[in-house]
């Protein structure tokens, strides 16, 4: 099977072949990686690659996989032959940015209205969670195309807050 992985904006084309029961071969950019693999726990893989012992956990998030390796975390998108099944939601159309709630919480204040012109880093709204108020700022100069929430609304992580274009 062929997959496309996107990490930090970089695209990696991966071809996976199962060589033996516990051995897979991954071909990336013409290079072949032969790995011992064992699913030691649900979502946790142990890889042996060139005698290195590496443990990697994979947790599905809303739009990506959160991959943890050596205590470091990174978001990985995977696109397979059947199309984009796991794509980052943050990437909008050209020049458009979707802002999503970074955590569940309550909208305590909406600072702008739809159609407003905003500067980069201008506060758009304030969310309260765990007794902390957190201001959501505009990542770019532009126009508020849409507001996804109203004051006093409860939001979940990943809910659309606003679209700036």
């Amino acid at each position, binding site marked *: *099977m062929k*997959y496309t*992985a996107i*990490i*930090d904006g*970089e695209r*990696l084309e*991966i071809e*996976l*072949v*199962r060589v033996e*029961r516990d051995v*897979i071969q*991954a071909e*990336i950019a013409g290079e072949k*990686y032969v*790995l011992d*693999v064992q*699913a030691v*726990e*649900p*979502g*946790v*893989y142990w*890889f042996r*690659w060139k005698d290195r012992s*590496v443990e*990697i*956990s*994979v*947790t*599905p998030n809303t739009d990506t*996989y*959160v*991959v*943890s*390796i*050596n*205590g*470091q*975390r*990174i978001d*990985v998108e*995977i696109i*397979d032959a*059947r199309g984009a*099944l*796991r794509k980052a939601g943050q990437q909008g159309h050209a020049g458009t940015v979707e802002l999503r709630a*970074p*955590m*569940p*919480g309550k909208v305590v204040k909406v600072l702008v209205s739809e159609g407003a012109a905003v500067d980069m880093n201008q506060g758009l709204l304030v969310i309260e*969670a*765990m*007794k*902390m108020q*957190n201001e959501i700022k505009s990542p770019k100069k532009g126009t508020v195309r849409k507001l996804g929430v109203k004051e006093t609304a409860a939001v979940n*992580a990943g809910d659309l807050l606003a679209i700036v274009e």
Partner: protein
Amino acid sequence: MFKKILIANRGEIAVRLIRACRELGIPTAAVYSEADRGALHVRMADEAYAIGPAPSRESYLVIERIIDAALRSHADAIHPGYGFLAENASFAKACDDAAITFIGPSAASIALMGSKIQARRAVAKYGVESVPGTVDPIRSDEEARTIAASIGYPIMLKASGGGGGKGLRLVAGEQELESALRNTRSEALSAFGDDAIYIEKFVEKPRHVEIQVLADRHGNAIHVGERECTIQRRHQKVIEECPSPIVDPDLRGRMGEAALKVVQAANYYNAGTVEFLVDARRRFYFLEMNTRLQVEHPVTEMVTGLDLVKLQIAIARGDKLPLKQTEVVMRGAAMECRIYAEDPDNKFFPSPGKIVRLRTPSGPGVRDDSGVYEGWTVPIDYDPLISKLVTWGSSRAESMARMQRALREYQIDGIKSNIGFFREILRHPDFQKGDFDTGFIDRFIGSVYDQPAHKRTLQQGDRTLAAIAAAVFHSERPVPAAEAEKHSDMFWKLDARRRGLRSS
């Protein structure tokens, strides 16, 4: 011995208290809000009482509900933990009125030390020096300007009823004073219901060092070493140590003496903490006294071998202190990292949610005081502290190496945490040398951590392996029934047997 103790708290500290009671053979009654049904402290207690909806002002902060649960459970003592009602004099009094022992000091001690102004006045009589500044609330902007000028800028504005890092503001010069006064007052009013504020000299390169004290109801009191609490983010402690890298036996002795004078001034019994600010020349100033168990009490326990919770219980039932000052022996060094459900890469936003995978470290010198479990949903309603990771070593270097090792073993998935952030702090040369002040972390975040140049990314080999792992996981994910047919041509189908094993 008490017949039953009601634990008027939640999270890791409630679990800590239940463990102490269990070791003493005392049954426990937990209380829980609607958000904490099935919380670890509820699971571990012998009894459990619902006390209302999720918001703490409707549950954990409602004195009558706690007292009512205690009466229903026939508990003869209540341990308040920290936070919530732990430093509420009315609660201590309500316990007295209900003939239930409050495991803490007298209501009078709480009230006295709860007012910073009264507390400073009281300790001054015993010769304990506070940071130069006003003691009474300032009455006008004009007065503030005069006092600030006489002390000299920079100054700190502080809420009289404040604590926990809230209601504080640094003022660099007179031009900032007016707006700072306005903002601090309004913050104080909304946070503490009281807009009284006072002025203090700002101590440059300050370190925050506190002394743990123990005092019984018979007039015996000892100090059991200091804690270094300088590593703070936005005035909230995140790493604590015992001993402090800058405290030698002489300074420890002098600070301990001062702390015992504060105990006298407060007519105090219970475990307690006297907080000091230490300047670059190692002069120390009284800040405040916390009349309760401290979050960071484990580092003292690891180094002194004492169990502070058990000692609180013993003091509350009227025992004399079981040891003298000369019997306090400190050994090695301990360190605590407060593991929070928060996202260091996104301004430390809280990250509540379901913990889908939890692997906690263990082995030599590691203690994990956790309040959560795999499958638990960290609620949105409370402080995001999920665990305190504590290490001990024969030296500060060994304790630090163990902390690095333990942080690497610690795995929390499903929510974000500050574990990776701690690993970076512990690698910082100034931290390793013990050379820091209270602004260390905020400077590190501003100048290094949050800079685009400091992009935390993986080496090429690890990136490739991460991509492969995600692709393998993706290929193994459950597929909707309608797609199963199409799916059957995938190379993975050979592996049905293995999948069967994994899902068992």
